[in-house]
């Protein structure tokens, strides 16, 4: 369903061109003293796309250009098939924008505010009221929507900010650091909501963050920029596949297994009583299974681990040292389960590899 909706939502049928939501071509933005974007060429397809970069990497500049609010110094950009240089107003009618900073007046209620913003997007009064009620319900704001926003928690404010970006049913939303300032639970809820914006609402999403871990869980595609330059753009699966490793725990004879797997051509490291196997492809699972069966030992678990995407950019050889991380052997047990976003945050940017990552996905593999 997601794919069909996504294709439908991107407007390919209207413009008769390939399903590209955002396309930039050698896009540059130079200020007198800084180059914010440097010949950025990237295509963004329907779905959820994570735009990753450190502060000052050019994320906000890119959003401003995409909204037609700031002319590019050189190069071109198209949003939903429209040229940002000439069709800014039309683009802004079809796109929703959630800024990074606070933007809510405290003395009006969420309902009044979102209705006003809906009208500013061109919705007639009745439609603006109906869409506001719908949208606020979808982002999870109920009775409190009639109260002045000054008394809202950060999580509620972020929901209103998201609602005002969605109220006019855009084809694309640009979300600038939507998880900023949220606690771990709030971040998870916001990420789930962002996922739903695409899967349930059929709206494509460009979400920026300086935290790679959270985008890895939310996005279909990831675009990484640094210093205004494109570092990498590809699907999240490609990222994670090449960074995946498999934690194998057996009841006995770990060293024998290590030797056997090494002989089978896999790169294996021992970490306490766990073996960490670098996953080359799907066949690696079979090799592990066969080796364990051949040894006749009990397989306690097989768990997919991920190296953080960060490693790809901080290390020249991302696969080189997957075990330098703070992998305290026994702690890696069942305690991995509740993957803590707070933990993710701490790891980011330090380039520390592979603490317990997205172990939920790994659970599915245990059946092997």
């Amino acid at each position, binding site marked *: 369903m997601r794919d069909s909706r996504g294709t439908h939502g991107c407007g390919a049928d209207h413009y008769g061109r390939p399903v590209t939501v955002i396309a930039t071509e050698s896009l540059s933005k130079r200020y007198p003293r800084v180059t914010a974007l440097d010949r950025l060429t990237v295509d963004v397809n329907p779905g959820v796309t994570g735009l990753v970069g450190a502060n000052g990497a050019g994320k906000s500049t890119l959003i*401003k250009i995409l*909204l037609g*609010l*700031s002319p590019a110094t050189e190069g071109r950009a198209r949003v939903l098939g429209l040229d940002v240089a000439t069709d800014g*107003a*039309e683009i*802004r*009618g079809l*796109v929703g*924008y959630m*800024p990074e*900073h*606070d*933007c*809510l*007046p*405290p*003395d*009006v209620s969420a309902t*009044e505010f979102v209705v*006003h*913003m809906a*009208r*500013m*997007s*061109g*919705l*007639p009064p009745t*439609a603006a009221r109906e*869409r506001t009620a*719908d949208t606020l319900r*979808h982002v999870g704001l109920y009775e409190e929507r009639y109260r*002045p926003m000054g008394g809202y928690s950060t999580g509620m404010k972020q929901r209103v900010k998201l609602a*005002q970006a969605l109220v*006019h*049913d855009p084809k694309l939303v640009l979300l600038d650091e939507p998880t900023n300032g949220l606690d771990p639970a709030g971040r998870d809820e916001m990420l789930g909501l962002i996922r739903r914006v695409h899967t*349930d*609402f*059929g709206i494509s999403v460009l979400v920026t963050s300086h935290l790679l871990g959270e985008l890895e869980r939310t996005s279909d595609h990831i675009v990484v920029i640094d210093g205004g330059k494109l570092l990498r753009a590809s699907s999240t699966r490609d990222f994670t596949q090449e960074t995946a490793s498999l934690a194998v725990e057996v009841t006995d004879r770990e060293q024998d297994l290590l030797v056997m797997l090494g002989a089978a051509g896999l790169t294996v490291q021992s970490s306490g009583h766990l073996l960490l196997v670098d996953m080359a492809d799907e066949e690696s699972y079979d090799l592990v299974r066969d080796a364990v069966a051949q040894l006749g030992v009990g397989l306690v678990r097989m768990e997919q681990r991920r190296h953080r995407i960060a490693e790809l950019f901080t290390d020249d050889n991302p696969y080189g040292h997957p075990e330098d991380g703070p992998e305290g052997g026994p702690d890696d047990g069942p305690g991995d389960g509740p993957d803590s976003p707070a933990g993710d945050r701490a790891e980011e940017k330090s380039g520390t590899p592979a603490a317990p990552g997205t172990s939920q996905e790994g659970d599915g593999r245990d059946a092997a």
Partner: protein
Amino acid sequence: MTQPDVAAVPGPPPGPPAASPTDVIHNIGYRKYDGPRLGRGYARKSLYSQSLRGAYGLGRSAKSKVLPMILLGAMCAPALIMVAVAVFTHMTKLPVAYTRYAVLLQAVITLFVASQAPQSVSRDLRFKTTPLYFSRPIERVDYVVAKFAALATALFLLTALPLVILYIGALLAKLDFGDQTAGFAKGLVSVVLLSVLFAGIGLVIAAVTPRRGFGVAAIIALFVITYGAVSSVQGVAMSQEKYDVIGWLGLFSPITLIDGFQTWFLGATSAFPNASGPPNVAAGLVYLLVIAGIIAGCFGLLMRRYRKVGMA
């Protein structure tokens, strides 16, 4: 809860109780919007009406209605009293000319500008709401035009309503229809110009600072200080009998600009000392040019201001 036998009979767990249809909250899911999108003009109009209503506290908290309503009352009360007096004492003319009314009550108008201009624009800056506007179909010029027009309209309502009261009262008192209509029309022309001029000056000052208090203080200071300065220097000129100088001095404060303009162009009696309006044609034209220049300048400054803060 309506299954008392569950606890009593252990056995295979009962399936989920078949809820009656009324118990179910249907999630109707996300609905696409296929209706009309009315675009820039409509959005500008919406911003205009929201800002205009906001200037009188409508659509805002009860507290924010208090001050504008008091000021509106203060503006109209003297007109009502004059009308009552005129009707019951059978006066042959109104105690105050239409064109003089706003000049007499300039303190009330100043307070209104000082309180509502920052309300209109400083809030958007302070709470950083402007990026939400500029990420929508409207352009910078739409925002500036809507805000400018809204405050000018609010000021026009404030200054024209008492004139309407005076006019109706004058007709009730059976004063000469032709005279009264001509005077009323001139009064309206004068307050239109006053509203646009005051709105422009107020908004430019308010848009500089996201701090509402600073905006209020700065606007009051500008209007009061310039008027005080002009009046006192005019007083000095009066004592030295330099009547031409009095006429020229009026160029240096907003309300005296309006006074000079209406004296020359609308044949009003000047409120300057010795009723010395602009001394000659050139002076009259200079008044007009200065007013037009200030209004245009304010518009330009606002446009420049929002080019910077639009997405900040």
